[in-house]
């Protein structure tokens, strides 16, 4: 009896230790990410929370860090968010519907379209900035305006929105489509009355997440001229600077009041905005998630 139970115990000490070591490595892999996240947040809050006040939220930027605020940048980021939502959602959902419900996947051009979108999703954001610089700012002569920034961010997040919307549309079971077709619904009626209503929660969640990524983007906005001193509220066709660009502007200064403190306070505001959007997305997902 005891011999049998001894036999069931592990005989190879080395194997046990290798297993433990491996497990430790795996846990370390996860821990590095979370530890960095934690340190980053603590560092930012520690340095910047003192300066998160009405001056920061309501005043324009200034050469004096004591009275410098980010009002124009915060407003521009909000405007960008609204414009992005208005531009990306129809275009992204439209493309997703075309690819999922209309396109015949056996055709080469539709396959090419899919690969093209996947590839665009991975093009570096700065390249979109170059596109904006060449075509919108200089080519079209639009100038360094908020609208150019919104358009370039739209192109940047569109692939992500398309991919999210496609997943949401694909999650609607085919039996729903078949049921609707069998009753004599046309393709658009099937899409509009059955598929889209069922896919809306997924589309909304994916779009908000994509949007929050876009609002944190800095590099493409640098190229369409957001790195500028703006002391007035932004307008659609006027100069602008966005919150991440404002943060960069402060980080790039040599004085520690700007570089460390004011930048950190700007980061807190940015992170709070993005966190709120992410929380909204997660709430939407949990509230309306449907299991088929």
């Amino acid at each position, binding site marked *: 009896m005891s011999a049998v139970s001894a036999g069931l115990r592990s005989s190879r000490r080395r194997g046990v230790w290798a297993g433990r070591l491996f497990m430790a490595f795996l846990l370390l892999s996860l821990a590095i990410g979370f530890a960095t996240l934690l340190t980053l947040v603590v560092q930012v809050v520690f340095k910047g929370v003192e300066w998160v006040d009405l001056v920061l939220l309501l005043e324009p930027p200034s050469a004096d860090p004591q009275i410098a605020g980010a009002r124009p940048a915060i407003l521009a980021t909000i405007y960008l968010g609204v414009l992005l939502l208005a531009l990306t959602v129809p275009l992204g959902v439209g493309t997703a519907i075309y690819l999922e419900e209309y396109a015949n996947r056996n055709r080469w051009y539709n396959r090419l379209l899919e690969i093209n979108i996947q590839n665009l999703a991975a093009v570096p954001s700065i390249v979109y900035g170059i596109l904006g610089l060449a075509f919108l700012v200089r080519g079209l002569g639009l100038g360094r305006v908020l609208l150019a920034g919104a358009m370039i961010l739209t192109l940047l997040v569109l692939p992500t929105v398309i991919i999210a919307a496609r997943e949401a549309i694909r999650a609607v*079971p085919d039996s729903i489509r078949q049921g609707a077709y069998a009753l*004599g619904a046309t393709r658009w009626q099937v899409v509009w009355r059955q598929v889209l209503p069922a896919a809306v929660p997924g589309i909304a969640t994916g779009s908000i997440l994509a949007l929050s990524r876009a609002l944190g983007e800095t590099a493409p906005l640098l190229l369409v001229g957001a790195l500028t001193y703006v002391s007035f509220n932004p307008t659609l066709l006027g100069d602008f600077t966005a919150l991440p660009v404002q943060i960069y502007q402060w980080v790039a200064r040599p004085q520690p009041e700007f570089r460390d403190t004011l930048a950190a306070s700007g980061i807190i505001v940015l992170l709070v905005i993005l966190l709120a959007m992410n929380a909204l997305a997660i709430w939407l997902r949990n509230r309306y998630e449907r299991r088929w």
Partner: protein
Amino acid sequence: MVTVPESQTVPVTLPGVNVDAVAERGRPLPARELREVVFDVQGLGVSYSGNMALQDVSLEVYRNFVTAFIGPSGCGKSTFIRCFNHMNALIPGARIHGRILYHEQDLYGTDVDPVEVRKRIGMVFQKPNPFPKSIYDNVAFGPRVLGMTDGLDERVERALHQAALWDEVKDRLKASALGLSGGQQQRLCIARCLAVEPEVILMDEPASALDPIATTRIEDLMHELKRDYTIIVVTHNMQQAARVADMTAFFSVTRGGEGQRTGILIEYDATDKIFTQPSDKRTEDYVTGRFG
């Protein structure tokens, strides 16, 4: 709670079941020259991207009959039934060969509109597929997309009555259809189909996902519905075919050169004949349980 009687000789009486319809089962078939042909299938074949799924099927479907398609899995019976309402056209790469005449006109003629076809030829699927909407909206969907919105309430009520579901749902028409039991969901799908007043109802294994009691109710419903409708039913359950069908077609599989399976029609005759004195050995083997 409904209790199932132990002895099979005691008739099961369930709410919503028409006793007359059950009694009608023994009625002899009308003579061939008195039958009205709804579908005349001539040499029909279906291929998916070049692979023949079904080959050379010819048969006639008669008005106010229940016609059953039986056969082992993979014999193409589901593929076949989907030809009658253009559902195969939704699958990229599917091709239809041969002809189906519907009241003497080619169902796959050049100017035939799938929407018009599906309006006249309704379909009930293997798994109940109610839309994620209210019971009322499920039934009203067909009439709405087809523009038959005059007297919609009456139409919905009539359909639910015909599907023997009205008494169970009349107090909760606004409740979600997903809250119904499986059997109720399937009857809702039948009601949904009846609401657009088709001439033909196609049923693709309508009871295969249901328990025996729910199955009995669907079968009784089919008996009742054939007074006003022509019904084609695919079933893997031979007893079900024997119970409900006036005519039965037996399909089987032939294996081609590279192991590809093609469905063929073996025998088509009055149900009694198929089950008691089939003229083909393969049919006999199947109905007696020696094969399949």
